[in-house]
């Protein structure tokens, strides 16, 4: 079979790879406890951990609980800890793990386990309700340039996989930072969330270790582009002496 002139056939490198076998060590259990169970799984080229979990369901453990939707890294449902690292199972390639060693698959640590790989993430939805919604400024012009929204669009890539929450060491006191950012950076948004950020969301507690940025499957630079600018907004408002003087003199916010 000939390829198009001047082109390298896609995936050619993986050709000829024969099905091999891997061992998945999957957490089975519920809120009361559990243990990892080993399953032998045949491996095909390009296979991801979620494929392996599906294979186990179809052949060995039909009741193995896993949450997933799109298997295309667009819905953020299949978050787990693969070999101890928070990741989407649909993006974790089997051939990226050392051959011959069992691959450990466990539920996200921060959230309570419901069963097997499924955790209770309802807390994130509760927090979401508390973020003040988009509120356009009265009389705002609905025209803006692409560069005006590039920043906000970055945070709106968020697929709500909750991996950033999973690794955050001050979790439960300051959350969904990039969703704040996605609204705060909308060019005509007029809602004031600065007080919420300081008092309810505890933004000051973050000491920018960038764990969240590291695990984001959408490559959102959460720490640099969301948390730090929001910290600056809080600081400008509440702690900057020059700004304080300015507000006293002009009476403007």
């Amino acid at each position, binding site marked *: 079979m000939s390829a*198009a002139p001047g*082109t390298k056939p896609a995936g050619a490198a993986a050709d000829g790879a024969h099905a091999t076998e891997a061992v998945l060590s999957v957490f089975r259990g519920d809120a009361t406890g559990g243990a990892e169970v080993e399953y032998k799984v045949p491996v095909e080229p390009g296979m991801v951990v979620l494929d392996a979990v599906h294979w186990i369901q179809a052949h060995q453990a*039909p009741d193995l609980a896993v949450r997933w939707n799109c298997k295309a890294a667009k819905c953020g449902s299949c978050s787990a800890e693969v070999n101890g690292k928070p990741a989407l199972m649909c993006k974790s390639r089997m051939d990226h793990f050392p051959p011959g060693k069992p691959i450990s698959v466990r539920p996200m640590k921060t959230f309570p386990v419901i069963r097997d790989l499924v955790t209770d993430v309802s807390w994130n939805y509760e927090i979401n309700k508390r973020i003040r919604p988009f509120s356009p400024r009265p009389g705002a012009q609905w025209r803006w*340039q*692409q560069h005006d929204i590039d920043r906000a669009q970055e945070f709106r890539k968020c697929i709500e996989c909750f991996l950033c929450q999973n690794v955050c060491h001050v979790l439960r006191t300051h959350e969904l930072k990039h969703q704040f950012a996605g609204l705060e950076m909308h060019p005509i948004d007029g809602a004031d969330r600065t007080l919420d950020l300081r008092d309810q969301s505890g933004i000051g507690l973050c000491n920018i270790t960038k764990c969240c940025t590291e695990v984001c499957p959408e490559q959102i630079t959460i720490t640099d582009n969301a948390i730090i600018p929001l910290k600056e907004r809080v600081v400008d408002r509440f702690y900057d002496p020059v700004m304080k003087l300015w507000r006293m003199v002009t009476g403007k916010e």
Partner: protein
Amino acid sequence: MTERYEVHEHDVLVIGAGGAGLRAAIEASAQKASVGLVTKSLLGKAHTVMAEGGIAAALAHVDPQDGWETHFQDTMKGGSFLNHWRMAQIHAQEAPDRVRELEEWGALFDRTADGRILQRAFGGHKWKRLAHVGDRTGLEMIRTLQDRGVHMGLEVYMECTVTRLFLDGGRIAGAIAYWRESGKLVVFRAPAVVIATGGVGKAYKVTSNSWEYTADGQALAFEAGAELIDMEFVQFHPTGMVWPPGVMGLLVTEGVRGEGGILRNAKGERFMWKYLPEARRNEYAASEEEARRWLDASVAGKQTDARRPPELSTRDNVSRAIYTEVKEGRGSPHGGAFLDISYLPAERVMKKLPSMYHQFLELADVDITKQPMEVGPTTHYIMGGVRVNPDTAAATVPGLFAAGEAAAGLHGANRLGGNSLSDLVVFGRRAGEAAAAYARGLGGNRPRIAEAEIEAEARDLAAPFERAGGESPYDVHHALQQCMNDLVGIYRTEKELERAIEELAKLKARAAKVRIVGTRIYNPGWHLCRDLRNMILIAEAITRSALLRKESRGAHSRLDYTNPDAALGKVNHCCVRAGETMRVSATPLPEMPAELKRLFEAAPQPVGAKA
């Protein structure tokens, strides 16, 4: 023994929390109805997040010549005139308002140089019409609707699967569901139900659809006595990934072709010129040079007299073209075609198609800024579904409404890309409005659910745990997917369709005897038992309708009847329950009024002012 269950009461129950369900719930809530929104997934994970390319609306920001009439014409032509003209008209007229409304609710669409919503080209659309956010338009849309709904205080039942609708004297009385987390039962008393459950793609082996697409809404409606139409029209998207095996079928957005992607076969030939239908050839560029001029103008945001590239033909046509190239021995190494965007500057590819870039790099080791992609057809969408009133989205059962992919009529025999996202918000809003009005109109005269029916359903749901023998539901599901892929795919024949009918009858018998182990707490095998029944039922509707349509039209291609048949162009095939069997018959297609027909004459004149 009667199982315990919790009870909730609402005016309107919306099943499905994708674009259509959310928009319906928002509207019904705005009409002061008490609304319950039920979703089998977590909120915000619905299939709408996977929509990439954009939402079609004749805003005329990029091509000022555009207007609702042209959008209407394109939709009807794309659907081989099997669409319900009134749905296509409402859709084309209202889509721009629905897009502006999304923006008012916080959606951030990509911008034109003069600061308005940018629009891109797509297959079958005469002008650049798709408002978009890079290649993640669906995600932006669902987040916008989700936030709107959450802050309106919508009551959302997450990870809750509806298994049956209840009737009282022929009218909708409510529904029963189970919580996936606990396996416990929930009864909803609601006189109005909106079906917004999406599609059926999981009945096929190669599909771009997520796990949720198990034909639930179509099956619930059918069992409640509603009519399903156009079920033979299943859209095979031309560009799914074909390699590696784990990602086979995963969608490659049509936005790649909208941004200039070129399709070539293994011999390097740009084959789409060969497959343009004669009647529409004059809408496409006649040469590589003209296609390139169109692209350069498109990138520069300038007007041009050059016509669009042949890759932007309709989906049914591009799918058949790729299928034929592969079958005749000119396929790529893994049995697809090459889709090349690497001739454009890498920076532009990364800006306009970021998720495609990451998808291929991470899952297939292909850098699309340097190499072509390998693509082939994948099951993507069903044009058929619940028959609805175009203005109210009401199904043929009182109290039942349907919107989005689960409903039928707008797209006819083939859907244009971008028309599904607009479908969701245009008809989602109408369904929510009409459902709220219906519930209000009932006053105190509300239908009641019979206790015996709840008990019967509870027994049915528990049965797979109690069987001594029986096979795994996963085995039956795999057999169904193979059957539909092999026998009811892109090209169909009478012989194969008849074989599929026999196979489906066997699968139905097997599905009735599946057995499951474990508990009811988050047990996916148990969930599949019920989904399986829905998929097999709807697979039968697809196959029986396909058997009856002895012609080729839109997405339905018959090797034994290769041409369209004028008489069949005037009918829909309608599936309805008759006792324990399915009756399929031809029903007349509503005729388009004269003033709209004039739009399709030699020199179309606009009717009235632009909407």
